[in-house]
């Protein structure tokens, strides 16, 4: 038989190449999306600059940038791993992207790995930008980088689990609304820019258990106060990560 243009030559690309291509595409689409950039870059940057420059909330003793930067870093992680990922994945599900990719050579776990890689790449870019701005504003961080890294990784896992759970179970429009609402509520109530001691004790006890509070509090303990491993915050994040990822794995619907 002669060889034609379409003569079958089927085969999957090597797995690392597929995952890299998938992660690159998702990152590119995210960085090109205006609404996503608003959440992941513009809002954290504005809050950091605005609240460092203007004394709007009482951030306690010391420079306000030292209080704010850890909170803003936590917000950046939440905006990408939770809000951004939930909205993007919700619409990918709605428009049949997840379905179409499910019949491609890329296995489902490969797609999820690529999504995680895309989230991590975006977070690295956010952290580079935000720390550069913070240093320009006179930030002087302390503490153990390993503890910071562990907090960021566990925070990402916790928020990813919750974001994917939302994206995989709710309608895309509901995910869009809920993810933005949660972003706003946790921004205010999760120790990002408003110190937790501004809330009544009863509310504080509950709010302290939120993943955003654990992440911002843990980062603040280390970066502002030079604490060692913030085990209690790491523990809270670990529980959220396990519960969120397990629930997402169990309830996620691909179409």
């Amino acid at each position: 038989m002669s060889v034609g243009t379409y003569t079958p030559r089927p085969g999957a690309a090597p797995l690392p190449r597929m995952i890299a291509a998938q992660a690159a595409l998702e990152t590119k689409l995210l960085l090109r999306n205006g609404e996503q950039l608003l959440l992941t870059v513009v809002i954290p940057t504005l809050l950091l600059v605005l609240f460092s420059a203007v004394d709007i909330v009482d951030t306690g003793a010391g420079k306000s940038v030292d209080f704010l930067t850890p909170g803003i870093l936590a917000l950046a992680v939440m905006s990408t791993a939770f809000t951004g990922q939930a909205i993007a994945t919700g619409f990918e599900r709605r428009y049949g992207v997840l379905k179409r990719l499910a019949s491609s050579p890329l296995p489902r776990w490969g797609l999820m790995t690529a999504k995680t890689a895309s989230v991590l790449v975006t977070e690295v870019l956010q952290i580079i930008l935000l720390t550069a701005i913070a240093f320009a504003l006179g930030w002087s961080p302390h503490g153990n980088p390993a503890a910071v890294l562990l907090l960021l990784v566990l925070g990402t896992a916790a928020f990813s689990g919750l974001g994917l759970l939302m994206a995989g179970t709710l309608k895309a429009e509901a995910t869009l609304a809920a993810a933005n609402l949660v972003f706003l509520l946790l921004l205010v109530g999760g120790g990002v820019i408003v110190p937790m001691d501004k809330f009544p004790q009863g509310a504080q006890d509950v709010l302290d258990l939120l993943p955003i509070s654990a992440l911002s509090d843990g980062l603040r303990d280390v970066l502002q106060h030079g604490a060692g491993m913030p085990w209690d915050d790491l523990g809270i994040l670990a529980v959220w990560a396990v519960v969120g990822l397990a629930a997402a794995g169990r309830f996620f619907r691909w179409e």
Partner: protein
Amino acid sequence: MEILHPPARGADRVLRLATMRSEPVVQVQALVKRYGTKTAVDGLDLTAQAGVTAVLGPNGAGKTTTVETCEGYRKPDSGTVRVLGLDPVRQARELHPRIGVMLQSGGVYSGARADEMLRHVAKLHADPLDVDELIERLGLGGCGRTTYRRLSGGQQQRLALAMAVVGRPELVFLDEPTAGLDPQARRATWDLVRDLRTDGVSVILTTHHMDEAEQLADDVTIIDAGRVIAHGSPEELCRGGAENTLRFSGRPGLDVGSLLKALPADCTAVELTPGSYRVGGKVDPQLLATVTSWCAQHGVMPDRISVERHTLEDVFLELTGKELRS
């Protein structure tokens, strides 16, 4: 030697055809699929050999459910499905690189450009087609920097088609590939399906366009309400069982009664409009001869004599009593 050579080659071809015959590309047996209380597919059997197979039926007949079960998206409630000899759910990793899938709609990031998405799908395959050539071929070059959500329906369809073939699959599933396309785009899609077939790619396509099945398919399976109601080549389906029609024109007011007497008992003959006659019944060479000799006896020159073949549309109507597009 000279005499022996051609038969030997012939035998070789027969052998190869026999091997192809022995392993269908798709084999569905007694498939049942329910959604809640609704039974979408109700004991369906489908065997597709290499070539182009059309699955034809009205909306809601179970076409998409059947195809999506073959693609590994749905688990059968009962029955077995084998695609290229593999279980589409349990052996998905093995199967997916070998098939190409065109969903009925969507499947593309709303913010991605056509070429970007196509290049991405190409990267997931070991030995993909030349993306630029494919873009050219399907007229997607004009999409430029437009993102998917702003492409026209026809452009979206053609992109989905391109995504299904870019990985050089052995078997392509096309779910209503020309729904909503303009005539030129439809023609381009048909040409591509023909080229795929020529180059040895098997195609399973669902459609509710009769002419599409007649034009493209080696085999047609007509389904309705989740069951197969007819199966065969377009020619077989159009011939089998269906009564045909013979029409001719002559001078007005011929004695139809005497024609009727000359015809077999179960035939009909009417003058539809003055000078235009229709004979209904099993139209075979004998019947044609009877009509022409009757004309000769009556000194009639039958103008524009024609035997009308039934279309798949007629077959479908006869089988279900329903309009196909309902």
